[in-house]
């Protein structure tokens, strides 16, 4: 009887355990970003952080509506065998004014135009107009061949919409007027400069930027003297914003060897040339931002003023850091060492800067003063939302971030989480210098992520604004912000001196009097001693 009771009890506990285990499991199956979000502290160490972005949606050819291109009843119809997927797309561009996306669909030799919701509203396989390059005999269309970059610009003079296409294999940059969802009319062709300054044998433009004066800047493959600059009328005006040679040990060693080597030997040596940049972007004020893939330190990310001078130059005492800044770039999950490869940069209309790292698939978001806001995104071969295989381009509008993947052939839309919203709000106030207003928001940030360093700087500055120096000192110490601590300390010291001036004076006078008395006493004793010694003799 008792045995049966025992087994019954055992059975009961077992079923209960199984039930509780199952319920536990269902609780654990929640949706999460496929990446570990982290941030950097003042030491350059990684600190786990809340995720500021989550994947909203992904858009592949199907979701974009590329099937329309092979649907003969649709106005966008091209042909029955038009590809309904993206293929190795290299560039994504956002037209801020019209809120339209443009994709350079490189593998399919076409340019796609999407609306705000990433639905197709236009497709271009070539340009019409007076040209001799790659003209199709049947249609008279000058067809694109592996277009790698696209830029769209509304002329401030005529108000017309112009598309600039880096038509790489045709060795030209096309400037075309957008006439209809299917037609581009050639305005200007920018081809290989005849100038002696242009030394490269080929002209394969990959990325384009156009400034307000309609000067065209093209990143050209294997040209390392900067971007090639054309004026509006198509003439070559020079190179713009070249990188410098990174002073690695190998470069320095070679410089020494060159001093002692013979001319023949020097001819045999490889030349130390700066690396060409991978991509660039232009903001509304006309500053051009560049990223360089191969470089990790010198000129990896630059902000160029119209004269081509780098504003973010660390060699003149600044401390700007972009991408993964630690020396130990190690993926903790796979335990693989990697070298960052910053492939794209974009400045959003709210002036946040997004930098895309091709190696890790991470997007680094900075505010306009280059404070790191957040890091998100991942790279793996698993077909997960929010992770990439070949992240080629990044775009940003307001606080949404769009990433184009050239291998998964889709666009991933990231949208901010609640934490991200709070962060952006905090930075917005902070960057405007509204420290007092930002205090509440920074507190909210800390409530959600106590390891967020900049929040403490923000709180410290707010406290400083309220003349609460002690509090400010405390916060700056947590954030390890020595410079701001120093400032706060100076005020605090001044304050202390002012308040305790009389007391301090009294103490000093007291100490001086005491010293004088002691010295006199000691002298008296010393005088007394030798006398004794003399007497002893």
């Amino acid at each position, binding site marked *: 009887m008792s045995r049966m009771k025992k087994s019954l009890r055992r059975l009961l506990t077992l079923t209960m355990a199984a039930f509780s285990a199952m319920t536990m499991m269902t609780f654990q199956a929640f949706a999460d970003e496929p990446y570990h979000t982290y941030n950097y502290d003042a*030491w350059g160490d990684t600190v786990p952080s809340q995720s500021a972005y989550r994947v909203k949606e992904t858009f592949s050819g199907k979701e974009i509506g590329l099937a329309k291109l092979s649907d003969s009843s649709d106005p966008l119809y091209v042909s029955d065998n038009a590809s309904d997927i993206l293929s190795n797309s290299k560039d994504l561009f956002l037209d801020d004014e019209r809120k339209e996306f443009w994709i350079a669909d490189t593998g399919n030799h076409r340019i796609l135009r999407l609306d705000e919701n990433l639905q197709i509203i236009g497709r271009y396989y070539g340009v019409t107009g007076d040209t001799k390059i790659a003209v199709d005999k049947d249609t008279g269309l000058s067809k694109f061949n592996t277009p790698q970059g696209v830029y769209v610009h509304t002329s401030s003079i005529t108000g017309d919409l112009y598309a600039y296409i880096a038509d790489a294999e045709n060795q030209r940059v096309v400037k075309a007027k957008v006439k209809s969802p299917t037609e581009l009319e050639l305005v200007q062709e920018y081809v290989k400069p005849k100038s002696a300054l242009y030394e490269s044998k080929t002209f394969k433009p990959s990325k384009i930027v156009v400034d307000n004066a309609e000067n065209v800047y093209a990143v050209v493959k294997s040209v390392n003297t900067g971007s090639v600059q054309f004026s509006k009328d198509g003439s070559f005006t020079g190179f713009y914003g070249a990188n410098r040679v990174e002073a690695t040990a190998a470069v320095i060693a070679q410089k020494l060897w060159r001093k002692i080597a013979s001319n023949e030997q020097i001819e045999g040596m490889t030349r130390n040339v700066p690396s060409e940049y991978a991509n660039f972007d232009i903001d509304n004020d006309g500053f051009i931002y560049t990223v360089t893939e191969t470089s990790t330190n010198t000129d990896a990310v630059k902000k160029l003023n119209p004269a081509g001078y780098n504003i973010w130059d660390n060699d003149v005492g600044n401390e700007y850091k972009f991408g993964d800044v630690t020396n130990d770039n190690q993926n903790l999950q796979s335990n693989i060492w990697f070298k960052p490869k910053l492939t794209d940069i974009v400045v959003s209309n709210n002036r946040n800067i997004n930098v895309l790292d091709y190696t890790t698939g991470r997007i680094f978001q900075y505010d306009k003063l280059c404070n790191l806001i957040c890091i998100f995104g991942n790279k793996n071969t698993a077909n997960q939302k929010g992770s990439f295989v070949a992240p080629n381009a990044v775009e940003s509008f307001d606080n949404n971030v769009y990433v184009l993947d050239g291998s998964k052939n889709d666009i991933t839309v990231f949208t901010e989480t609640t934490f991200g919203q709070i962060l952006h709000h905090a930075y917005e106030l902070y960057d405007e210098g509204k420290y007092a207003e930002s205090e509440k928001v920074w507190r909210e940030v800390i409530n959600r992520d106590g390891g967020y360093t900049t929040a403490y700087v923000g709180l410290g500055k707010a406290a400083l604004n309220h003349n609460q120096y002690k509090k400010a000192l405390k916060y700056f*110490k947590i954030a390890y912000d020595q410079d701001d*601590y120093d400032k706060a*300390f100076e005020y605090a*010291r001044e304050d202390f001196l002012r308040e305790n001036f009389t007391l301090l004076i009294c103490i000093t006078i007291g100490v001086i009097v005491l010293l004088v008395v002691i010295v006199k006493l000691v002298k008296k004793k010393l005088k007394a001693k030798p006398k004794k010694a003399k007497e002893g003799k």
Partner: protein
Amino acid sequence: MYEFTTTGWLKHVIFHPVEGFEDLRWKKQGSIKVSMIIVFALFIAMVAQRRLMGFQFNMSYDKIFNVIPIIVQSVVYFFTWVIGNWAICTLFNGEGTLKNICIYSAYALVPYIVCTFIAVFFSNFLVQEEGIWVYFIQYVGLGWSIILMIQAMRAVHQYTFGKTLLSMVMTVVAMLIILFLAILLLSLFQQVYVFVYSVYTEVVYRIRG
């Protein structure tokens, strides 16, 4: 002439860099006890520099505070210096004994220690703009100690100036060799330990199994 107490001798040596150590040697003065206290003070000064330096001047990585490297940098380095110098002086015909080298070297360190403490103290009241004073005091202490060290080595071994410098450079080389051998020995012993331990576990398993 020159009848001082132990601390009186210390003061005399520090403030008379030219003749101080010669007097010390002549009078056969100097206390090993005081020199040990000085070495300990060096260790304390180094800890203070990392922990008590004003925040705006503190460059140390304060997430982790480990006292072992500081012990190595102060106490261990000091004794390797003494032993290295003693080893070199037998080759270079120096006249110093191990005890004397220890005492004289320790006495020479006093300005560095004192100036470090002063710098640490002032760093808590100054801002970065006035930081030059903190660094100035530190450098003065360091320079003073170096001069005293040269004089100490010269006096203890009765060398010429050039030979003193040479012997000091050689001492640094000897220190490196000593430390290298020490590390080698340590890792070898560790391997022996691992070997013995694995034999032990093996035996234990056999007995149990």
